[in-house]
């Protein structure tokens, strides 16, 4: 094994290697103790370090969180280096992985999401080194509280190991050029996230949500794997470039190939939350803790789009003309965005609202993907659209995750399941409420926030594709003759208008309702600082040099992805 590794530029995988090291450390370090092994027949005792009574530092329940934050920070730094000088950090690693601007950007998205989750976890799943077992003196309530604290201490390692495996899977997945590798990495991340969804198994919703998400997810994965096997049957090779070549040289449409791609669309559709595969998503988001829900809405969705890009845009696009999945994709995107926005309107659970909003956003991005599938897009227009989607995925980290982080601070007092929990937040904590409002505006796509720019880029991409079509002699004749892709852009605009109702409702209850709870909101300083930073970033990425910087990166990534 090691001989094969020699000569490969493994340093390109530095972020993943750091995560792997952190993972191992996370398993070993909390178990370090003074255990000794007596060599048989002698009285020598060799310290083996694992087990026995644990060292003081290893016993500290906050340790896993520290290790994870440190690991992810180092990994993020490594990934950032790639962002700053992509040419030094690009290249192929083995036959299944490639590091280029695209995978670097995605790695950055994934790792920063998980880093923020780890920061938020210090607040959501607090580790208390002073926790004690309940005694006789405790009444029922304080006893339960003490038990909870102990319980939280015990499961620190589990949570953080799962975070790191998710990150590892996602980050490698973005780099894979082989569908098999891609699928394995995706499953690594997915299985970890299933467990994370059901992590709060003591609550009924948590356990149920995790199970449901797992069951539906497995079905989707199974369909995907079946589709992949069909592709293998057709081509005998699952590398992306090989499949792409064969697709282009294919005569007509091979049933095996199309069925395979169609089935994979189901699997990835589930990941991105496309209708009608999204049904488990609202349940999962509202059952999971807000941190995990935020992770699912940003990183997991980005992962789904990476897979969609690779299979739909790279593999199954014909040399010219419309791809066979265009109509299906357009229909899915229409249904998805409308369903998401409509369902969010009457929901009274902020997490569900955000879940449906996440579905709607997936719809917008799928509309952009569908515009590529229309076959009208030249290389430049394609790059434009992919840039828009990548930009959207990047800024989602800022405002979608930001919104979930605000909810996670409400969650500790039990107020994230009902809209009333947000009541009067502005009076209790003006800074968090202000940030939340910024996130809502950004999600709704109000200028000058980054959500506006990303939506604008996507609509611009779609309209560019359909530009010049349609005769302009009268409105009616124009409307009937314009390319159908154009109506996707119209749908995005109409849906955005609809979505304002529920985004602004959140703002409304925060600012104009009387607060339910008394006193200030409890939220620890680092989390608060990051929420404020995220709200500043949602502005910075929406206007001025910050937005240009990010659009440039996304554009570079888009060009690296497209052949």
């Amino acid at each position, binding site marked *: 094994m090691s001989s094969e590794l020699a000569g490969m530029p493994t340093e390109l995988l530095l972020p993943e290697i750091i995560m792997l090291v952190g993972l191992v450390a996370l398993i070993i370090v909390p178990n370090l103790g003074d255990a000794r092994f007596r060599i048989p027949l002698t009285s020598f005792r060799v310290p083996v370090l694992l087990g026995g009574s644990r060292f003081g530092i290893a016993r500290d329940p906050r340790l896993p969180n520290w290790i994870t934050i440190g690991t992810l920070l180092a990994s993020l730094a490594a990934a950032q280096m790639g962002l700053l000088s992509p040419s030094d950090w690009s290249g192929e690693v083995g036959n299944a992985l490639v590091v280029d601007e695209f995978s670097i950007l995605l790695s950055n998205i994934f790792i920063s999401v998980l880093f923020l989750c780890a920061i938020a976890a210090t607040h959501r799943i607090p580790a208390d080194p002073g926790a004690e077992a309940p005694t006789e003196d405790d009444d029922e309530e304080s006893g339960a509280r003490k038990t909870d604290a102990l319980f939280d201490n015990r499961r620190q390692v589990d949570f953080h190991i799962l975070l790191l495996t998710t990150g590892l899977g996602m980050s490698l997945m973005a780099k894979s050029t082989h569908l098999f590798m891609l699928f394995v990495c995706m499953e690594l991340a997915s299985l970890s996230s299933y467990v994370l969804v059901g992590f709060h198994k003591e609550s009924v919703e948590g356990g149920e949500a995790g199970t449901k998400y797992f069951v539906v997810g497995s079905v989707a994965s199974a369909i995907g794997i079946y589709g992949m096997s069909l592709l293998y049957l057709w081509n005998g090779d699952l590398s992306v470039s090989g499949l792409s070549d064969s697709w282009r040289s294919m005569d007509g449409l091979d049933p095996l190939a199309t069925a395979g791609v169609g089935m994979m669309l189901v699997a990835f559709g*589930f990941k991105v939350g496309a209708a009608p595969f999204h049904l488990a998503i609202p349940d999962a988001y509202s059952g999971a803790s807000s941190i995990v829900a935020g992770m699912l809405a940003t990183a997991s969705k980005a992962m789904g789009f990476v897979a969609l890009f690779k299979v739909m845009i790279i593999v199954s696009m014909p040399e010219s003309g419309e791809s066979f999945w265009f109509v299906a994709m357009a229909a899915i995107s229409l249904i998805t965005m409308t369903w998401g926005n409509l369902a969010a309107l009457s929901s009274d659970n902020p997490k569900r609202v955000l879940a449906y909003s996440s579905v709607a956003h997936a719809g917008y991005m799928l509309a952009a993907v569908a515009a590529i599938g229309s076959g009208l897009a030249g290389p430049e227009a394609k790059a434009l659209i992919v840039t828009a989607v990548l930009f959207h995925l990047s800024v989602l980290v800022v405002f979608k995750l930001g919104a979930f982080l605000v909810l996670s601070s409400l969650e500790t007092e039990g107020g994230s399941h009902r809209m009333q929990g947000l009541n009067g937040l502005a009076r209790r904590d003006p800074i968090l409420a202000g940030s939340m409002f910024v996130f809502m505006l950004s999600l709704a796509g109000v200028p000058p926030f980054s959500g506006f720019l990303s939506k604008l880029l996507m609509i611009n991409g779609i309209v560019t594709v359909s530009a010049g079509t349609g005769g302009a002699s009268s409105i009616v004749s124009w409307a009937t003759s314009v390319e159908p892709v154009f109506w996707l852009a119209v749908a995005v605009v109409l849906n955005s208008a*609809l979505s304002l109702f529920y985004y602004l409702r959140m703002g409304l209850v925060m600012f104009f309702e009387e607060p339910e709870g008394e006193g200030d909101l409890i939220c620890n300083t680092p989390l608060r600082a990051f929420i404020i930073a995220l709200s500043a970033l949602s502005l910075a990425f929406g206007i001025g040099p910050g937005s240009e910087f990010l659009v440039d990166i996304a554009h570079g990534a888009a060009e690296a992805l497209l052949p």
Partner: protein
Amino acid sequence: MAKSGNEYRLLMPLIPALLVVPALAIAEFDSVDAAFLIVLAPLVAFPIILISGQLKNGEKAWKEGLKEGGTLALSALLVSLTTALWIIVDYLRGAREISEEVGERVATTWGDWISFDVLLSDYTMSSERVIGVGVWVDSVTLMLLFVATFLCFLICWFSLGYMNTDPINENRNHRFYAEFVLFAMGMFGMVLADNFLWLFIFWEIMGLCSYLLIGFYFWKESAAYAAKKAFLTTRVGDVFLMIGLLILYDIYGSLEFSVIFEDPSLNGSVDTDKLFWALLMLFVGAVGKSAQFPLHVWLPDAMEGPTPVSALIHAATMVNAGLYLVARMVPFVDVGHHGVAGLEDLGLIVAYIGGITAFMAASIAFVQNDIKKVLAYSTMSQLAYIFTGLGVSLWFYNHGNADAAALVFGGSMFHLFNHAMAKGMLFMASGSVIHEVHHAHDHLHHGSEHGHHDFDPQDMRNMGGLASKMPVTSAAMMIGSMSIIGIPLIGGFWSKEAIVAKTWKASLDYEPLMLGPAVLVLLTAGMTGFYMSRMWFMTFAGEPKSEVVDHVHEETPWIKEPLVILSVISALGGFGLSVLGVVKWLAKPYKDDIGIQKESVFDQVIYELEHAFLPEDPNLRIVGWTTIFLSLVVGPIIAARVHGGSLRAGQSSNPMVSWLVWISGRFGSQDMSEMADSSLSEALRHRLYFDHYYEKALGMTAIPLASFAAWFDRNVIDGIVKQVESSSVLGSVQIRRATTGRARDYIMMTAVGMISIFALAWGVSG
């Protein structure tokens, strides 16, 4: 209230502000490039004061250490003031050193703000620079810049005493200071703007701040009404201004001064009628902003705002914006420098509006008993003087008589300076009076509600004899009034003389129609003498008219310093600056070849005196002495007969004013109650019924339209939105039924989805 002298240690935050300009100078910045600081400093201070005020309200350090943001505002304004002074000094030095053709105007452009890609008829794009960001500096800019920065600073200083010691403002002062600096930013920006669009933007910012500050006591119905009235009335003017700017843009394809003023006649091809209408529209905007007939109705009501606001916005700075705009019209009409001939009517209109307003406002001021309202009408009247002067100047420029035009232009601008200094100070002095009377009243009836509502601390009928109680204020008010009246040798005399004389010159030698404004301004000179003297005598001379007066003490900190500084400037500034030739300097941008400097200062003084009192033209000699006679003798003596009188026995006053009190008692007294009951007097008290008829007209036109718009908005537009919303919610409830919560349904849907994908893929492609 009476704090110890170490209140002034609060000025510590000003030290870094003082160091900004030296630091930039050492870093070899160009003073003109540093001009952005003038606007930037208050702009940065605005959110800081507002936000920290919201956060820190009620805390001791914020309240007493930072004066609820007052010292922060003062620091920002100090940065602006020092930068402005730096530019002025540099400019004056450069004007002497740099060759003549460069030295007069400094325009610095920093970059594009708006540029359009214009599609040409041959389908190529041409990038056209439309609006840049930069500054335009000439002597008019510098004069206004000095007036604005200097008075903003002093009035902010005054506010530290006036606002922060009034319990009604407790915990609200950060709003005042934030709006104050935002206003200052607007004024500075408007003065520095190098194109009409920026000028308009800053103009509107000022309008907004004026609205906010007039309505500072918004819970008082009258204040809220006054704020709305001021905003809407000036808005009428602004609409016309905007139309004017659009026409200008249509003519020149740009709004930049440097482009338009290069050759306003477009080589003689410009459409004169179009330009006339554009300039007339701009003038209507100016009329609104400077409260001239017929858009003058808002200014007296604007006195509902705190007194520093009246001093700053409604006397010293914002109302000058209209004058500034008219002054910027000179290049259009200056036929000697690419101006467009045939625009004499414009000058005539401006002069007539000025003359009418001057006379009308002065006559209304006769019957006002509210000390601030007298000053408000006086402001209108004096601004009208300047408009008359500018109108005459525009007429002369267009007629080709550049010498006379430059002199009256310089004189008008100089009157603007004198008036701003004197009126800013008069308002602050009236503020001092009001504040102390109010305080004395509170002290007298401490705590009890008795008499609180029927006592008006601004009513001069509650005052009298205050000269013995308020030595500094009474002296300051005397000097300010003298400057406004135009007592020979003091302040406004030097500039008013030029306006009156040149208006008469125009009417006698050239244009008979100018006789109207000429007669009106001459009459107004005497009337000014009456109403300003009346105000002073009613307030400071004679026996006290209410018991409150005995308890007045002049002891609020921060109030006296600005009064003293401005008194000196008002008293001596007019004479000093005219000796230095400021009139010609101000006119210079448009006229380079005048400016004969005498050999020595003494010769110059003699020349100026000769020029003022014994002009060569016999007509002007008559007019000049008539003016002096009316304003010095007729007006004040009548006022003294009616309202003057000695102080109560045993009371003494400041030697600076005691002579005046003594004189006022020598003319006997005259009962004017019969005249006060006359119907003319009644009409004047009702401000000549302008407000009444405006309201009636609005009731017939705007209000039905507004009601219809409101109905349409409520029922049609909101109805549609609500319909969309309610039907969406219905759909939402239906669609959410699909989310059953059962995993097998979800898997079922997944299967349905997959089959649909296949169906669609094959159905369409296969």
